[in-house]
C-alpha cells in the first residue's frame, strides 16, 4: 500500500529522522518505537503528507493518500462539543445529519466516552481529549490511521478501549510510541534511533 525507502529528514543540518525501508500493507499494525527525538512524529507526518521536505522515496496510491488520517501527540480539538468534533470530519462525507451523529456516537461509545458527547471540549482531561480526537479520526474510516502516542494520558480503562478499537479496526494502523506497545495490538515493530534505525520484526 505504501513503500518508503531511504527516508531522511534534515533540519538545520541535523538529521531528525532516518529510515532505510518501510512497507505498509492494507491491514498492517505497525509500531514505531523509539526514544524522544528519534523522529517518530516526523515519520508519521511524512506518511500523513504534512511533512513534504524530505529525501528518499515514498510510493503510495492517491486513494491511500486521500484516506490517511493523523492524530497528533497532543491533539487539537475545535470549539464546541465532543460530538461536534467527531462529526466534523464526517461533514465532508455524504451522510445526513442524523446519520453523522449516530456514527459519531458509535465511535464515542466504542472508546468509552459516549457520556461526554455534549460536553464542551474546553472541559476535558488529557485522556478524554485524546480519545475524542481518536474517535474523530476513526469516524472518517481512513485506509491508513497514524496515531502519535495514543496511549499516553489514558487510564487503564481508556487503554483497554483504545487497544480494542485499534485491534478491531479493519485498515492499516501505524502507532508511534516511546515505550513498548501492548502485545494485544500484535504490531510489527520498527525501532527508530537518533542516528540510524534498525528493524526488529516482532510479529510472530
Amino acid at each position, binding site marked *: 500500500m505504501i513503500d518508503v525507502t531511504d527516508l531522511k529528514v534534515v533540519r538545520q543540518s541535523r538529521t531528525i529522522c532516518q529510515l532505510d525501508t518501510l512497507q505498509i500493507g492494507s491491514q498492517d499494525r505497525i509500531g514505531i518505537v523509539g526514544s524522544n527525538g528519534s523522529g517518530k512524529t516526523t515519520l508519521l*507526518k511524512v506518511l*500523513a*503528507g*504534512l511533512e513534504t521536505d524530505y529525501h528518499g522515496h515514498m510510493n503510495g496510491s492517491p486513494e491511500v493518500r*486521500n*484516506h*490517511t*488520517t*493523523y492524530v*497528533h501527540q*497532543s*491533539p*487539537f480539538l*475545535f*470549539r464546541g462539543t465532543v460530538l461536534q468534533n467527531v462529526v*466534523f*470530519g464526517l*461533514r*465532508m462525507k455524504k451522510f445526513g445529519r442524523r446519520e453523522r451523529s449516530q456514527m459519531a456516537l458509535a465511535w464515542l461509545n466504542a472508546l468509552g466516552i459516549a457520556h461526554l458527547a455534549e460536553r464542551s471540549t*474546553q472541559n476535558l482531561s488529557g485522556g478524554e481529549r485524546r480519545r475524542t480526537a481518536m474517535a*474523530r*479520526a476513526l469516524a*472518517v474510516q481512513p485506509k491508513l490511521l*497514524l496515531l502519535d502516542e495514543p496511549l499516553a494520558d489514558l487510564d487503564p480503562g481508556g487503554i483497554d478501549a483504545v487497544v480494542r478499537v485499534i485491534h478491531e479496526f479493519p485498515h492499516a494502523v501505524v502507532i508511534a510510541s516511546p515505550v513498548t506497545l501492548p502485545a494485544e495490538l500484535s504490531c510489527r515493530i520498527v525501532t527508530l534511533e537518533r542516528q540510524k534505525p534498525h528493524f526488529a520484526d516482532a510479529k510472530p
Partner: protein
Amino acid sequence: MQFLSEGVTHAFRLLIVGDAEVISAAWNSVWISISAVLLATAVSVPMAIVLYETKSWVSSSLVVLFRAALNLPTVFIGLVCYAVFSRQGPLGSAELLYSPFGVVTGEFMLAVPIVVSLTFGTLQGLDTRILETMRTLHIGSRLRWITYISEARLGMMVAVLTAFSRCITELGIAMMVGGNIKFHTRTLTTATALETSRGEFARGIAMCLILLLIGGCITVLLAWMQRTQESIRE
C-alpha cells in the same frame, strides 16, 4: 477658559435637544464608516485566508504591501480618489465625487489593508495543528474557511473594529472626496474642522464628544471580547 466651559455646556445642550446638523453629521459618519468596513471585511477576510493558505513569494510580497499600506496618509487616499472620481478621471462618469458613496469607497481603501494585515496576523498566530488536523481529515475549502473564521474570530473582530475606528475618525478622505456638504457628505470630523474654524466651538465640541463616545464604546467592546475569550480559555 470661559469659552471652553461655555462650549462644553452648549455642546451638551445641542446633543440633548438633538441639533439637526450634529445628528446628520453623526449619522453620516456612522453609516459611511459601517458600509466601508463591511465591504472591506467581505473582501479582506477571504483575501487574508487565501494569503495564509498560499505559501509563495507572491503572497509574502502582497502581505508586505498590505502592511506598508497601513501607513498610507488619508489625504493621499483622498487625493487618489479625487483624481479617479473627478470629471477628467477614469470614473468621472460615476459621479462619486462629493457623494457619500465616494467617501465609502475611499474609506474602503483605508480599511482593506487594516483588516487584511490584522486578520493575516491572527491566522498566523493560530495553532498549526488546526491546519494539520483539517488537512488529515481532508476537509474541503468551505468548511476550512468557516473553521478559520470560528477559531480566529476574536482577532478578526479586533481587525474590523480597528478599521471602523480608523474610518470614523479620519478627516482627509471625507474632506477631499465628500467636500463637507451640509446634510449630505458632512461627517463628524469634517464638521468639527469647519465649526472650529468658524469659531463655533460648541458644535465642534459636541461632534468631538460623539466621536469620543464611539471610540470609548469600541474600547469597552474590545476589552469585553478579550475577557470573554480569556474566560472561555480558563
